């Protein structure tokens, strides 16, 4: 998948020729070792394509691992904290996995492709951890990161666009469902998943067909105002929709070198992903202890007064500093100033009123703002289209 002919240190994805052609701003970033666009033409317009029409985001740098073999389900059940048996064939489940200390290593999605056939789509490279987890299990793990590339096709008109591409009856696909098609003689897999909180799909294909897929997608989507999306626009959408980001909202446990910098699922508001009715999974003993003894932190979504994003802010309760912000954005659709924060227990319960200490500058003039904020109990952006089947027509 990599284009190393120019001896670049950052790799490029199989969509790169097309991405580069459309990247009017020439604004690039490094996403997990790949050259990826921060923005194509205008962050806000890209964001509004996601919310109003269709946005396309190149997901190829995500890591993909195929898990097959007689013990595949048991293997995953020990690996992740939720009950894998509840993910049916051709269904996807959001999941997190922990180390033995109950600290979150990564989050990702588990695609069930067959009875004992799964694909893990993870943010972090996980080869080493997945290999260690093989001990005692009859499974084969294959790193498919370069064998499968993907595009997130998200937004209200995404179903229509993909149907025009040849994904017939796609509107019947339920959220977290998987449908299989053939595209130019290649297998094309579509999952109704995404990172934007709205109607949307992720499209997976072998790298040889990447450029053709991109071309045809933009051709059929032209009338539906399809736009490419850079990582800045996606960041806005995911904060609005309530999604956590590894390396931003938590540090993957294996990457952490300082004591106390890891977080448990409870401390990230992900207790709903932890199923103690399973007798064994990595981190279970430690998490049971934490459940009994209490957590150190609480993940809080804050609705911050004003319109200055509370980036990197300290969170105060009275005079006491009780937390820090990990992600923050002014969310255009919800028209709300949202921040994710790590709050020390016992603060940060829903409804708790706190203060964000925001610093911002205009023309080198710094201003300190003490913005009142309130802990909200659900993401601010809620699109009914995300859950409707058949997918609503635009």
């Amino acid at each position: 998948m990599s284009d190393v002919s120019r001896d670049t240190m950052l790799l490029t994805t199989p969509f790169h020729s097309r991405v580069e052609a459309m990247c009017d701003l020439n604004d690039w970033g490094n996403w997990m070792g790949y050259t990826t666009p921060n923005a194509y033409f205008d962050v806000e317009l890209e964001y509004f394509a996601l919310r109003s029409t269709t946005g396309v985001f190149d997901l190829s740098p995500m890591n993909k691992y195929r898990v097959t073999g007689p013990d595949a389900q048991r293997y995953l059940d020990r690996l992740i904290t939720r009950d894998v048996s509840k993910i049916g064939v051709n269904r996807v489940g959001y999941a997190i996995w922990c180390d033995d200390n109950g600290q979150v290593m990564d989050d990702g999605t588990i695609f069930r492709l067959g009875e004992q056939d799964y694909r893990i789509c993870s943010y972090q490279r996980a080869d080493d951890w997945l290999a260690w987890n093989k001990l005692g299990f009859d499974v084969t793990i294959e790193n498919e990161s370069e064998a499968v590339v993907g595009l997130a096709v998200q937004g209200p008109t995404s179903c229509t666009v993909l149907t025009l591409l040849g994904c017939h009856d796609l509107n019947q696909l339920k959220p977290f469902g998987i449908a299989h098609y053939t595209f130019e003689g290649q297998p094309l897999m579509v999952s109704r998943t995404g990172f934007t909180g709205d109607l949307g799909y992720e499209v997976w294909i072998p790298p040889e067909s990447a450029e053709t897929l991109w071309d045809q997608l933009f051709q059929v989507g032209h009338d539906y105002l399809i736009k490419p999306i850079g990582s800045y626009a996606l960041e806005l959408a995911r904060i609005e929709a309530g999604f956590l980001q590894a390396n931003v909202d938590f540090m993957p446990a294996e990457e952490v070198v300082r004591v106390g910098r890891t977080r448990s699922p409870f401390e990230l508001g992900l207790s709903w992903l932890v199923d103690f009715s399973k007798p064994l999974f990595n981190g279970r003993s430690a998490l049971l202890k934490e459940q009994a003894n209490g957590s150190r932190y609480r993940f809080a979504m804050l609705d911050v007064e004003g319109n200055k994003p509370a980036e990197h802010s300290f969170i105060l309760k009275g005079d006491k500093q009780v937390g820090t912000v990990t992600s923050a954005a002014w969310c255009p659709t919800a028209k709300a100033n949202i921040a994710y924060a790590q709050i020390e227990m016992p603060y940060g319960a829903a409804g708790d009123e706190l203060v964000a200490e925001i610093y911002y500058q205009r023309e080198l003039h710094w201003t300190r703002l003490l913005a009142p904020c309130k802990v909200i109990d659900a993401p601010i952006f809620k699109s009914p289209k995300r859950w409707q089947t058949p997918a609503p027509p635009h």
Partner: protein
Amino acid sequence: MTDYDAVIIGAGHNGLICASYLAKAGKHVMVIDGRTEPGGCASSREFTPGFNVSDCAQWLSQFDQSIVKDLDLKGAGLSLGKAKATISLQPDADHLILDGDQVSGAGVDPVDQAAYRDFREMVRSFAKLMTTLYRNRPPKLVEQNWTDRFTLMKLGLKLKMLSRERLRDLMRVVMINIYDVMNEHFSHPALKSTIALDAVTGTNMGPRSPNTVYSYLHRATGEHLGQTGTTQVIGGMGALGKALATTAEKHGATLKLGTAVSAIDKTGDRVTGVTLASGETVSAKIVISNADPTTTFRDLLGYHQMEAGMAKRTEHYRSRSGTAKLHLALSALPTFTGLTEAQLSERLVITPSMDSMETALNPMKYRELSSGHIFDISIPTVEDPGLAPVGEHMLTAIVHYVPFAPDIGWEAGKPRLLNQLLEELEAYAPGIGALVKASELVVPSDFEASHGMTGGNWHHGELSIDQALMMRPFPGSTQYATAVDGLYLCGAGAHPGGSIQGLPGRNAAKEILKRGAL
């Protein structure tokens, strides 16, 4: 309702000691072992008709005497021989003799003699500190627990009582190797290597290997555990195993020998009992494994039954050995050049120099046979004639360094190695070959098969600082508990480690009772 309060896997000395303490406290305990004789490494076997050999350990040098007292093992028939001198055999028959704090012979000069006394004194003070830690559960450093704090306070106090020079020496040497320490203290090559031998028995380390000062000090704790010097058990090591078995049964423990545990059963999130090779199951509130950590976690419980980090740690746990045993049935007492008959009852070693030890070690690393072996010899029949037919004798030797699986294979390798060992002995004991009626060579892979010790390692896992104290066998499974609910360890793979010492079994029982796990 379970069959037993606790089922103990392995009737080795630690398993039986643990059973005795638990049964003494009124607990309903069963001990299961695949071998038909109790004792584990403290066992005997008739390797050829009439010759009753201690088939694994041959010396008792650090058995905790508080256990002998607590369990009245003397009343159960345990009898130890006299403390032995160590005679380091020299090619010119002017042998070096180490007896207590005295060293003589082989031209050892007064400077080395004085240095030996000083060295012994230093080792004694260090070993005393270690004994403080050995008689307690290993203290965890990070958890604020009063039992652990008390142990650390005692240790701190004893450290404070060391002189400034001693403390400095301890900090300096404890992490390094015995080779460098010997060269700092002594000039006589055989004196250095004779001391260094105690640092490597049962391991696959050479004198230059890191951690050999720690393993040496481990051996040196014997004196503080109430045992002065190396001894043999009258009646053979099996007599110790039998005495422990009798004691365990006397206190009410049930022994089931001859049927191995094939699996540790886990129901839901906790261990609930064991399944035997016969298919029978035994349920218990807790399972205490005296098997080594690798056997316990990998083979009996299974990696799929534990969290992945624990499986990973088990895989990383080092448990290899370069130690073999030679058993010879002799038609008469052999003659060793330069030794009196009476001296044949002492501990005889062949270890010419530390370099010769390293030279013996090197081929083993590449799965080859060595050409000059290191011997640790016992002729137990001199002190205890009953072990062999009247007038006949037996020689047993711990032999370093022998690969676990040589490239030439053991079928071809064993006869070759046996011949070679006899040839090497012949140099010091001319005519011994002609006296051999029967012989047996037990290599590391044999020990793994017969005694269930992974890699043939006598300590149930290398005794090194990274696998010691609060890290034995590995973090997450320390203080005799494991990361799996209901599963405990009581063997040499737990603190304070190997040798026929008994403390892991004793400490495990005390900890289990203290925790109220039963």
